[in-house]
């Protein structure tokens, strides 16, 4: 094949689809539809959106080791969770240190009540959460979100983009409704 032939876009019916796939693969963070539209500024954003949703269905219907998912407001290709064992064996990695129950509870309070201050977290958990908050800040799962307009102007905290990524959420609206947990209270 000649070099020119390799470097020139093939004339298929929808040349945008493979470009979307290539862009999602190359991006080192979940890539947003907005960013894709900026790169393909000659194309109609509506059309790009349609092709993207076609691509997602097509990509994920293959009996493939990879999947294309929306996460933290963007699109990302990753491996499917069911193949983790073989991948871990190859990468020789162990799952990263799990968060303690105290940290997870604090994170849950912040996720649902954000923006929220340390005294408010104390009120809900009934126990001081400083060390948990430090852990969450260090792991970039939460970030300061300004100050509350009250005495002492305490710092408010909220969840970060990293939180969405590590917990596999498209956005905060994907968090299960806290009131749904009411049912679980029955026991």
């Amino acid at each position, binding site marked *: 094949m000649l070099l020119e032939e390799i470097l020139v876009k093939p004339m298929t019916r929808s040349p945008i689809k493979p470009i979307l796939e290539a862009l999602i693969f190359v991006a080192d963070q979940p890539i947003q539809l907005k960013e894709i539209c900026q790169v393909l500024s000659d194309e109609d954003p509506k059309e790009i959106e349609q092709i993207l949703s076609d691509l997602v269905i097509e990509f994920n219907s293959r009996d493939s080791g990879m999947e294309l998912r929306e996460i933290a407001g963007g699109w990302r290709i990753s491996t499917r969770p069911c193949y*983790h064992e073989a991948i871990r064996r190859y990468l020789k990695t162990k799952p990263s240190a*799990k968060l303690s129950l105290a940290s997870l509870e604090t994170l*849950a309070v912040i996720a649902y009540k954000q923006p929220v201050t340390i005294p408010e977290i104390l009120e*809900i958990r009934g*126990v001081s959460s400083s060390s948990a908050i430090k852990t969450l800040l260090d792991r970039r799962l939460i970030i300061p979100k300004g100050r509350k307009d009250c005495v002492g102007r305490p710092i408010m905290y909220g969840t970060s983009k990293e939180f969405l990524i590590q917990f596999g959420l498209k956005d905060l609206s994907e968090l299960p409704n806290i009131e749904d*947990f009411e049912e679980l209270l029955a026991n």
Partner: protein
Amino acid sequence: MVLPKNQPDTLANAHYKIKLEVFEGPLDLLLYLIKKDEIDIYDIPIAYITEEYLKYVRAMQELDIDLAGEFLVMAATLIHIKSKMLLPISSTQASELEDVADPRQELVNRLLEHKKFKAAAETLWSRAEIEQAVFTRAPIDSDKDNPEIAATIFDLVSMFKKILERRKEEIQVEIANDKLTLAQKIKEIKGLLSLKEQISVSELFNNAKSRTEIVIIFLAVLELTKESIIGLVQTETFGELIATRRDISKAYDPLANQAYT
């Protein structure tokens, strides 16, 4: 944990200790007690639960476990609710019974709220479990152009704190070094030699706290040798270097120090 000696390590105590360490806070402890005795959370027998709660708190204190302040606050709250429940309801209040708030209500609300977040934490845990089983591609060439880190305002603050600490340490070291003079060191070595007739040179260096101090000790030994206040003796080739006192009168002469100050 080591128990205090006067504390008999009874089975009961050991049992409490194991249980107690599990509780994150007073709400967790209360939820445990409620579950253990299959108590209806909406109708808590407050006298009984207060008694149970205080048993645990006392066990904790007896075992000398550092009790978080929150546990004591909750104990006070429980006792307060209990006393309110014991108060007879006046006839006027009784006629408006519907409007009289149950003294337990606020506590129940807090417990329910806390339980909800515990359940939410569990859901988050299983989501994280799945995401930990997911892998993204390895870094590719285009990533390498940007080997930097993203930052938040928290990073900015902790970074600023580190810079300040770093500077403080450096300044302290400088101050410490300023205090250490050659004259002082010479006086110090003379003092040592007034007590002992000889001393190994390596011993002099062993107590040095910084590189600067090592240099000063070295200079002091040279100076003392030059002034013939001490003599350096080596018992064998590459052996230990021994400093010996040569001129006792000079070593005791306070004026001899003047030259170096």
